[in-house]
Structures are given as C-alpha cells and as structure tokens.
C-alpha cells in the first residue's frame, strides 16, 4: 500500500465506519440513557437525576397535579369526518396531517414516561366511554367527536365519562362545535362549546400570544406553542369550575387551558397543528397538569452523569432533561412513592 496514494482510501473507510457508528447511536439511544428518583419529605423533596451525556434539567414541584394517566387513548378514525386546517410545513417535511400527528403521539409520550399509549377508532371510543373515566386520558385531534360519543346534547356519553374523572385533551379546532355523523360534519355551534366549558367562551379568530403566563410555566416546562386560537377567554369561564392556564398568553387567553368537568377535566391546547403544539401536549399529559395545579418550585440545572439536589415540598415532581430539546421526562408522585417507598427511595438524600 502506497500511503501517499492511498490516503483517500483510508479516509473513505474511516468515514463509512463513522457513519455506521452514527447509525448505531441513532437507533440505540433512548429512555434507558436517563433516569431519576425522588424522595418526598415533609418540608422538601430530594432528587437524583442520571444522564448518559450532558443535558440541562428541570425539576418542577407541583401541588394539585392530576398525576400520570393510567393510559392514553389517541382518537383517529378516517371513516369519520374531521374538522382541522392544513398547516404549512418546511420544504421536504412530511405534511402534518391528523394521521401523522397521531402517529407521533406514542413517541412523544413514551419519552416522557407514559408507556400505555394506544390509537382508538370511534367504536373503541364509545367503549371507552362506557367505563369510568378516572385516570384515563383521551386525546382528540380531529376537531370533531363521533356522534355516538357526542351529539350536541348534555346526555352525550362523553360528559358522563368526563364527570367520572376522564381527561379529555383537545387540539385543532373549537371544542364541541362539531360532531361527525360518519363522513358528514354537523355544525353544533357555540352551544356545544358551552356544554364542555360551561359557557360560550371560544372565538374563532386566529390569534398568537407574545407573552408568557405569569406562573413561570413556560420556562419550567419549556413550552413552545404560542398559538391561542380555539383557547377559551379566561374571563368568560364560569366561576364555579376550577380552571388553570399555562404557557403563552395575550392576557385574555392562554396556549394551554385546563377546565374542570365533574371529577375530570378538559384540556385545550391552542392553535392549529404544529410540532410545538404536539410537544406541549406531551408535556401537559406527562406532567399531569390539572385545573388545580400550582407550581411550587422550579429548579433548573445541568447534569452529566449524576446529580442530586433538593427543592420545596409538593405532591408531584416532574423531572425533564434537554429543556427545549427534550430527551426525557418523568412524573414522580408522592402518593405512589409512599406506597412503594423502596423503589422511589433508591436515591440517597443529598
């Protein structure tokens, strides 16, 4: 081998080997590279975070969180009409339609520690409504519910399910304004919205927020979506229902709204489809945000390997890694930890 003449051959071999190594990295990285533990105390919590590689982390301590859902059902049934708007995508990007959005929800939630995610059709949704809603989450991105579940009347099964503790996460259009009778869309109007939220509080205009809600949730959860179309006007929500608002705000509406319905709640993520919206939706579901959630403490730091720390006490702690480029999330619950203390208390209090 003539080193002078064959150096490009060596460079080619090294480059191809590096590309194969990169392929291995891409398909081997994942949730197992990270971990966290929390010990809940009377006045404080102590945490340990592990990361295979350097990442920023956020520890958010909350009171009044709903906790992790036991399972998440994502509705998608192309045989029923939907009512959503096309959105722009980058050149070369796959169109962000309902099917693609739904496909991504599994990965979006699993990286945040929510493993039981399934896609359901209209029949499955009706079956879901027939059991108590407590702990179950339903994601609806179709802008319209099938008429077997919701037909514009207060007797619709969805309301019984919500009242029994179900969590309905909604994005893509005004909630309750439409139902699908097969491939036909029926306009129910603002009366339908009032059935879900207690008042006619959604305006159809497309608006964008340029400010943050004052609770610090934007930085705590690295929220990204600043669209507020289809979000309820806070001032028009009935006072007898608990409601909480996170993310971005124009002072009247916010990008994330949670409104109580019986023992359950409705969550509206504002705006038309976007990747920012999907990421926020994942954060909201995984962190168990509810209409009564209050952020007690937020610690931001950096970890490469292992780090420990303490924060103010609360009943839930959401730990995430990566900040605006999230790679891991997990909700720790005081109740659950007290029940299985040994598994939650692996970390030594610092």
């Amino acid at each position, binding site marked *: 081998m003539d080193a002078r003449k064959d150096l490009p051959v060596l460079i*080619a071999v090294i480059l191809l080997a*590096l590309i194969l190594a990169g392929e291995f*990295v891409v398909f081997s*990285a994942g949730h197992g590279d990270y971990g966290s533990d929390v010990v809940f105390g009377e006045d404080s919590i102590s945490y340990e975070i592990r990361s295979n590689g350097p990442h920023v982390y956020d520890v958010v301590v909350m009171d009044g969180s709903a906790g992790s859902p036991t399972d998440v059902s994502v509705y998608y049934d192309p045989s029923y009409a939907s009512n959503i708007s096309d959105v722009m995508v980058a050149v070369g990007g796959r169109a962000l339609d309902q099917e693609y959005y739904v496909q991504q929800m599994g990965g979006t939630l699993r990286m945040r520690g929510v493993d039981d995610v399934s896609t359901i059709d209209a029949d499955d949704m009706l079956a879901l409504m027939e059991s108590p809603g407590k702990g179950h989450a339903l994601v609806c991105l179709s802008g319209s519910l099938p008429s077997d579940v919701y037909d514009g009347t207060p007797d619709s099964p969805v309301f019984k399910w919500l009242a029994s503790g179900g969590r309905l996460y909604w994005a893509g259009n005004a909630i309750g304004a439409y139902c699908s009778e097969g491939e036909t869309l029926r306009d129910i109007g603002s009366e339908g919205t009032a059935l879900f939220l207690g008042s006619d509080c959604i305006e159809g205009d497309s608006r964008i927020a340029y400010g943050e809600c004052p609770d610090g949730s934007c930085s705590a959860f690295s929220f990204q979506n600043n669209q507020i179309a289809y979000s309820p006007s806070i001032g028009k929500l009935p006072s007898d229902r608990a409601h909480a608002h996170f993310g971005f705000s124009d002072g009247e509406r916010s990008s994330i709204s949670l409104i109580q319905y019986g023992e359950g709640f409705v969550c509206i993520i504002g705006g038309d489809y976007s990747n920012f919206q999907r990421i926020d939706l994942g954060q909201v579901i995984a962190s168990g945000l509810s209409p009564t959630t209050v952020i007690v403490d937020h610690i931001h730091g950096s970890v490469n390997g292992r780090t420990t720390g303490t924060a103010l006490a609360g009943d839930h702690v959401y730990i995430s890694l990566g900040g605006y480029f999230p790679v891991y999330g997990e909700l720790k619950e005081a109740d659950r930890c007290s029940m299985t203390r040994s598994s939650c208390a692996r970390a030594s209090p610092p």
Partner: protein
Amino acid sequence: MFDDTKFLCKGIAAVIIIGLVIRFVVGGLLTYNYDVYHWALTISNFEAGNDLYGTAGYYYTPVWGYILGIFSRFYELFGIDMLGERFTDLLFVEDLNTLSPHTAFVTTIPFNIAVTALMAVSDLVSAYLLFWIVRETYDVRKAKICFAVWFLCPFAIAVGSIGGMFDSISIMMALLCICLLMRNQELLAGAMFTTAVLFKLFPAFLFFLFIAYIIVKHRDDWKLRIAKAGIGAILFGGVLMLPMALNGTLMDSLSLITARTSSDALYLSEIVKYGTPLAYVLEIVAAAILAHVFLKTKHGNDDRSFLFYCFLMMVLLFLIPGAPQYHLLLIPFLIMIAICADAKLRIPMAILFVTASVHMLSPLVMDFLSLTMYTDLMSLDAWTSFYNMFAFHSDFMDMPGFDLWSTIIGIIDLIALILVAVTTFVRLLSKRTESALDGLR
C-alpha cells in the same frame, strides 16, 4: 510559497491556520439558526428514543442523521449541555412568512462552534482530496493552489460555518468517489456513491459519468468493475436504509424527494413545485449525453478529461435556481479547471465566490441572533432595529423586504453562474481550453 514537493509546507500550514481561524471566529459569532436548530432537534429526537423519523424535525435522507449521531457523541465530550432556547422576545419573527424561514429558537454559541468544527473538518478533508486529485492529474504546485483556494473560499466558509449546512460533507463524499475510482477501488467507490447520493441528491447526476469513466479506464474488465461498484452500492445502501425498512419509516426517509413534488410542501410556489422536477429530468438526460460523449471520444488524458466532464455536468446542474448552498458542489470542480486548465475562468470564479457568499448570507440579520441573545456584543433593541430594516412589506410582487433582498441577490448570483457557464462553453466551442483537454477537440 507552494514550491515544496511535500504536502505540508509553510504555505499549506499558513492556509490551514488562517482558514480555521476565520471559520471559528465567523462561525462563533454568526449562525443562521433555522437549520442549526433543526440539527439540535434531530439530535434530541433520537436521543429521546424516537430515531430520525419517529417524531418530526428531520427532513433529509438518513445519512446526515447518522453523522449527527456520531457528532453528538463528540460534542458531548466537551460538556455542551444546552443546544438552544426559544425566546419569547423573538416570537414576533415567526409571523413573517419568508423564503428563508425565521424562528424564535436560537442555538447556543458552544453548539454553533461545534457545528462549525464539524464543517471545518469536512472542508479540510475536501481540500486535501482536491489536492490529491490535482496532484495525481496535474502537479503538486497546482494541487496546493487548489487546496488553498478551496479552504479560503468565502462561499465554502459561509455555507459550513454560518449556514451550518452540510453541503461541504456532500462534496467530501463526491470527491472521495472520484479518488476511489482513480485508485481502482470500485467496491468502496460504490459504497461511497450510495452514501453521497443518500446524503444529498446532487452527486447522483455524476452517475453516468462515473460509469463511463470506469469503462474508459478499464476497457478490458469494465463489466467486472462496474459489478463490484454495484455490489458496494447495494450492500452499503441496504445497511444504511435497513432500520427504516424495518420500522416502517422508509417513505418518511425519502420525504425530501417526494414532498418537493407534492402539494404538501406549501412553502413552494407552483413554478418551483412543477418546474424543478422537470428541470431535473432534463439534467438526467444531459448527464447521459455527456457520459456518452465522454465514452465515445478519444482522450489524451482520461483523468483530466473526466474531471472536465464532471465540471461541465455541475455547471449545467446548478443553472437551475435553488438554495445558494447547493452550488457549493460546483466549486471544487471550478477551482480545478480554473487553476489547472483554463485561466480565463478565474475571474468568473472570483465573482461567483462573492455573489454566492452574499446570497448565502442574505438572511443577514437572522445570522446575528446567537450573538444578540447570548452575548453583550449586540443588544436586542439594536437587533430589532436592524430586523425592521428588512421586515417592511414591499409592493414588488407582494414580497417582504427579506425576500426582496434575497431575490435580488439570488438573481445576481445566478448571473454569476451564467457567466461561468458562458465562459466555459465559449472557450469550449472556440477550442481554447487548455491542451490537457485534448479529448474534447
């Protein structure tokens, strides 16, 4: 300065040092965040266990994603923990729908420098490969001049260090294909060619010329050699695409190609949507004709003629208007021919360097965002005033100021490209190209 027969002489050392210093200073201070943000998003997607296409953010064929995979392991060695932030103060920039999209995400300076380092290494390797090819076909002195011109080329610096675009890696792969063919390493050349094409489509237009080169160079056993290249291409291509075939994202991995001809890519105008695929079909025909002519012509020096035909193909290819960084693949071939074969091309080449660099920097104000948000060198108020200079709405074709500016620069850049093409073809037709290209006479 470059008279020493060894590769590493004082002149080359000075070029390397100057080139690296410029890249790191410029790349550290200026970055077009939109693309670099997507590299960061891609890395976070696969680090979260969603590989390249499980969640949105990566719009290319997989090879660049694999390079980001190994790149992430390198920069993490330096403890880079934060790749970027979304700034509420900058949300307003997303309201404007422009040809070069704007985002309120701003990547951090350490991450920008890491991307610059990756591109600088690639530029350096490409410079060496250019040196190697010219040394093998012409002489060491010309080879060193080509090395210097490429490594100090402002356009190459702008694409890799400021744009954060990976076209320079595509060039490295295309040049490696040529080197491997010249060294009779067809199996490896096939693997590299597949990689290059899956990395960025443009080297595919050299396919027919590569085949013709093997035939011309190996009249006796060309079939066997082409078969070896084919085996290398298929095997390595299979290894690269296998994960997507297994997890059902194969079509997603090709969306860059399919989406450009579908109605889903809403940023594209109708002319671009339908005109571009038609133009590329014509380019494929041109590539086949060029290869046929190369095959049927008797050459005084096969290697020199082959390089010239590659240059002709690139000139034809990049007459199709596109993103400024696309033209970078033309540059190494232009340098080779302008330095070694036809000095009359040097002035058009210099003009193209300037216009292409300015075109690359046309979203100018957006390039200052990392500097503004992470240092005290520029205040947000000053940046916003700068931004507003371009954010006006022009009556001309209903364009925002940003697009008006980049369109004007784009037209000037296209004129420079046409100047290169006209000079090339006039010289060719008048048979004044250097005698080394005797095969064309």
